């Protein structure tokens, strides 16, 4: 563990030095394995939030109430602690600047993490690929990477839209409420043909957004999704 950064009310970013890391593509994840003193182990998967160009790895962990691992990772860990890391893992939810745009990225909550890896990679490579981003957050205190995302703009081809579902910042004039068809229409592209969509968030959020994208004229083959958490049922 290199560094721990408080990212929001409920999330922390862990920066990890991983000797021998073979490199990753933006959007991939890693497996983290913790070992207790008596040898008990627990493994979890986390999206990599850092760009492939960064010399260390970053993951952002949102605390899951009643969880086994996330309360430890968000409250206990300190620089110098050691874990086992395996990866990179995952092949379909990835993007490289060499592939160009247009991209439509839609994030719910901490689902922004793998999409942030894409945005950071885009910036690191100086790419001008058309990338439109729609982020849904409960409120400003829950929004991840907000200052950094704001700092990415203005940039050729990049458009970021936030919507706040519970509390908007003071003086907010932008979108409010959960992602709906008009929001996706505004954030998306008129010519849908070449667009690749990446959607990440809690399962109900992703199910909802994917249904809207399909209804809005995007083909299933253009849409890549990552869901996390239980279904809520």
């Amino acid at each position, binding site marked *: 563990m290199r560094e721990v950064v408080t990212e929001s009310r409920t999330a922390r970013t862990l920066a990890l030095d991983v000797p021998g890391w073979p490199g990753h593509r933006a959007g991939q994840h890693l497996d983290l394995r913790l070992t*207790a003193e008596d040898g*008990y182990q627990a493994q979890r998967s986390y999206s990599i939030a850092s760009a492939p160009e960064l010399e260390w790895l970053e993951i952002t962990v949102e605390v899951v109430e009643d969880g086994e691992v996330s309360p430890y990772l968000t409250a206990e860990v300190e620089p110098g602690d050691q874990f086992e890391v395996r990866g990179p*893992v995952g092949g379909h939810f990835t993007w490289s600047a060499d592939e160009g745009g247009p991209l439509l990225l839609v994030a719910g909550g901490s689902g922004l993490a793998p999409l942030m890896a894409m945005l950071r990679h885009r910036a690191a490579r100086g790419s001008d690929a058309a990338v439109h981003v729609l982020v849904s957050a409960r409120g400003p205190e829950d929004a991840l990477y907000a200052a950094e995302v704001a700092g990415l703009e203005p940039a050729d081809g990049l458009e970021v839209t936030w919507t706040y579902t519970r509390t908007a910042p003071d003086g907010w004039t932008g979108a409010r409420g959960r992602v709906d068809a008009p929001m996706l229409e505004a954030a998306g592209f008129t010519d849908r043909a070449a667009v690749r969509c990446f959607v990440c968030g809690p*399962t109900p959020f992703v199910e909802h957004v994917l*249904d809207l994208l399909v209804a809005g004229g995007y083909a*299933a083959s253009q849409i890549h*999704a990552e869901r996390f*958490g*239980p279904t809520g049922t």
Partner: protein
Amino acid sequence: MPPISRGFHGRRSEVDPARVPPGQYVTPDFPVLSAGPTPRTPLDRWSLQIDGAVDAALRWSWAEFRALPTEPVTVDIHCVTKWSKLDTSWSGVSLDTLLDGVDTEAEHVTAWSDGGYTTNMPLEDLTGGRAWVVHEYDGQPLEPEHGGPARLLVPHLYFWKSAKWLRGLTLTIADEPGFWEAAGYHNYGDPWREQRYWND
């Protein structure tokens, strides 16, 4: 010896550890994992097919499929993303019933689904009372996000082998890696041998 994660105690599960494969944790939830949108095929346009290296392809409409003998199945399921869920209860048709009378040289199967998903496994893993096409979960019609109207259930392999939105099984002479198998996940996927990725 792996490094000790200072201050990590973990939560010992109260379930019999013999039921939980290495690296898995037990959850009461039923997480959803799919790579794309949830397909919604109307039942009057749904069919299930067995084709490939067979003399004549078999095909069932929804009504024909539902007329086949079903059995209740209670099994533990293990997802490669580390969660396991114990004592899940399903109802469906045994693959032994579907494959009854099928004469083939094939040793492999590609299961294929609405939405384009595929996954491969040895044909023998689908026989001997170890695999089903299920249409009910917990006594209710299987919800689309969990693979309804019908999904494959092969509980002795990691759960990505239990293809959601199943529409067909293609029997093949050669082994053909499916969607995740071509993307770095293990070709066989035995949770008890922790066969998660290519090098396991």
